[in-house]
């Protein structure tokens, strides 16, 4: 907004040097910056709300909303399928699915992953397994 000689706010200066022109950013870079500004805001919801407000104004005048209003409404309508979804949305879904699930593991066979020390639960599982094996082997020996 300011001319080239105008001093920039430090954050803006860094963003300029690191990211350059906003319109040239990739979808992923744009999303990372957007999430930094508004982590909880859904862009499609904002567009839909504003486009709906504009459409209401046209309807109040007994007019059909023009193509650019209708296009925004159609593109941001709540999705019940992935058909016709914007490329950036699809990418977002794929990216969200990519990282491995973190947190407690329900399946005991994965419970020891990346753990250095045995927990009480691990010991209990091991004891149960040992007991089970002992019973199985014991049965075989008796036979």
């Amino acid at each position: 907004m300011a001319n080239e000689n105008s001093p920039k706010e430090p954050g803006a200066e860094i963003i300029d040097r690191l990211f350059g022109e906003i319109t040239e950013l990739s979808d992923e870079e744009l999303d990372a910056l957007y999430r930094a500004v508004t982590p909880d805001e859904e862009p499609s919801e904002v567009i839909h709300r504003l486009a709906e407000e504009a459409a209401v104004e046209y309807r109040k005048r007994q007019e059909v909303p023009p193509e650019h209003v209708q296009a925004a409404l159609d593109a941001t309508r709540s999705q019940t399928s992935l058909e016709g979804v914007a490329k950036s949305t699809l990418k977002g879904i794929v990216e969200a699915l990519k990282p491995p699930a973190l947190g407690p593991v329900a399946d005991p066979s994965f419970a020891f992953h990346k753990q250095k020390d045995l927990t009480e639960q691990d010991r209990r599982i091991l004891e149960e397994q040992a007991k089970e094996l002992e019973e199985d082997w014991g049965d075989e020996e008796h036979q």
Partner: protein
Amino acid sequence: MGRFENVDWERLLKVLRLTAERAVRDAPPTFDCGVSAEDLVGETLNEFWASENGLGWKREKGKLEAFLARVLQNKAITHLRRQKFVAGSMDDPDSRYSALAAPEDSRVECAFAWKALEQLVHGHKDLENLVAAAQLRPGGPNVNQEIAELMGKTPSQVAKLKIKLMTVPGVKELLYGKRELAQRTRR
């Protein structure tokens, strides 16, 4: 649908919001541009949709997001000019706008902000290199290409590093936090 068939509206909103954030933050520090970034986005889109021909945008004029980003920037300038502080053109070197922010102060502030960013990424070798490379370039287009050449990486690797940078605790606050937060880097 014609002209607007292939518009990515979500991307467009993100571009407008970030352009608005930049416009508001670039305003002189003694006042706040008189409008929030969110309001600027709303005003721009309302004007676009209220205009029956979409402010006359055609594909030949470039991408819609770039066209509306310029409309938004002009709106921000109009808001600034409406305020009494801004006497005369903002392009005029003698205007009060130019006098409000001394270039020396700004340079010092920027230097402190870069230092703060370096401290935040300390220990992440690839991010340290990214920040160093970004400081060597003057800004403007072809960012990833230029940084990639400086770092000996591909533009795609640079893009991924920048996304990683945004996940480092404190970086978002430094880049997009309130003005006062950014100024704290001076202390």
